[in-house]
């Protein structure tokens, strides 16, 4: 079975630092034999969660747009890499808007009890967060992690690592960073190799 890797780009800017870092990860995954797809949130049609809680009763979102289809693709993937630049010490409003839409999965899991993930399932599904920040401060990514944790918990993924690069303003872009792109590429290869080992298909 081919390992399926899905990248989700949450930046409003196309082909900027974060999406480039994600692409490097996905290229590495592809080189290691995975099938790779990418969803660019900017290019799809979805609106934020309305907080109506209708899904608490039905397990379905009442908003009919592209978001549930992307969640179907997340649930069908073996490895998901979700990417966002840091804006105002957090993920973008665009990615947060998408993550908040997973409430119907949360409702299935915790209220309706129609969705659950076994420990073995979670072990075989890896979630990775990819991010860049202009700022030089070390803790600039910290407030992004809890929402990413919520996303991966809700979708049955083992959130295993962050591939992040700060100080983009100093480096004048990811392409000038001495190690970030190479590191992301290698991590992409390695995560796929590890998954193959785990599944006994290497």
């Amino acid at each position: 079975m081919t390992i399926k890797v899905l990248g989700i780009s949450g930046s409003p800017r196309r082909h900027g630092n974060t999406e480039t870092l994600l692409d490097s990860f996905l290229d590495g995954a592809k080189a290691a034999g995975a099938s790779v797809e990418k969803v660019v949130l900017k290019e799809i049609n979805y609106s934020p969660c309305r907080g109506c809680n209708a899904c608490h009763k039905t397990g379905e979102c009442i908003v009919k747009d592209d978001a549930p289809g992307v969640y179907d693709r997340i649930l069908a993937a073996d490895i998901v890499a979700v990417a966002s630049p840091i804006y105002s010490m957090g993920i973008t409003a665009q990615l947060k808007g998408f993550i908040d839409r997973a409430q119907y999965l949360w409702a299935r899991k915790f209220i309706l009890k129609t969705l659950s993930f076994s420990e073995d399932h979670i072990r075989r599904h890896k979630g990775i967060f990819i991010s860049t920040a202009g700022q030089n401060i070390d803790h600039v990514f910290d407030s992004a992690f809890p929402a990413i944790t919520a996303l991966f918990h809700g979708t049955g993924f083992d959130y295993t690592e962050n591939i992040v690069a700060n100080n983009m303003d100093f480096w004048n872009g990811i392409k000038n960073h001495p190690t970030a792109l190479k590191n992301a590429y290698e991590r992409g290869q390695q995560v796929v190799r590890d998954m193959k080992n785990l599944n006994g298909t290497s």
Partner: protein
Amino acid sequence: MPVKVLAFAGSPRRFGNSETLLDWTLASMAEEGDVVVEKVPLTDANISPCRGCNACEKLNKCIQRDGMDTYHDKIIEADCIVLASPIFCMGLASQVKALVDRAQVFRSRKYVLKLPVVPPERKGKRLGIFLATAGQTWPHVFDAAVPSVKCFYHVIEIRDADISYLMVNGVDEKGVIAHHPTAKADAEKLGKSVIAELKNRLSEGTAP
């Protein structure tokens, strides 16, 4: 001059817990004399997310034409800016994050273009209030929202020490905050104390 309070009700759900907490706070403020309160539900505010184009670093202005054209000016004019958000997925509701991210134009003005966001005499005379509610009972449920809130206030010239917080966890279903043992009293106390402090500061350096 009346004290101007501008409040953003950030929940996509109208009249829910975070908006109720906001309403209690605003009502207590309005009870004080000489206070003008404006509440803006973000559901009606037409504020799109930031596009990350960085044009504001050169133009000193956002290239998007939407509700932010109005609220940009109101944010500058207000003496107190209140932000209310529910916690979704351990962070600000994305609607609130969109407002916070659109404050990028103020960041560009302050740090890139090195221009004043408010006149120098108004610095230190602006206060912020962050109100939040969360369904979860974890005490750390608000932690990831606070740094983004601080960014918002910093770039609109409200200092760390001038931000007050009232964050109520364990309130999930619509309306349950009404049964919370302290939330209403805390909100009213906060509203009154912020107005008293503002009147104090605004009268400093002016003739009696």
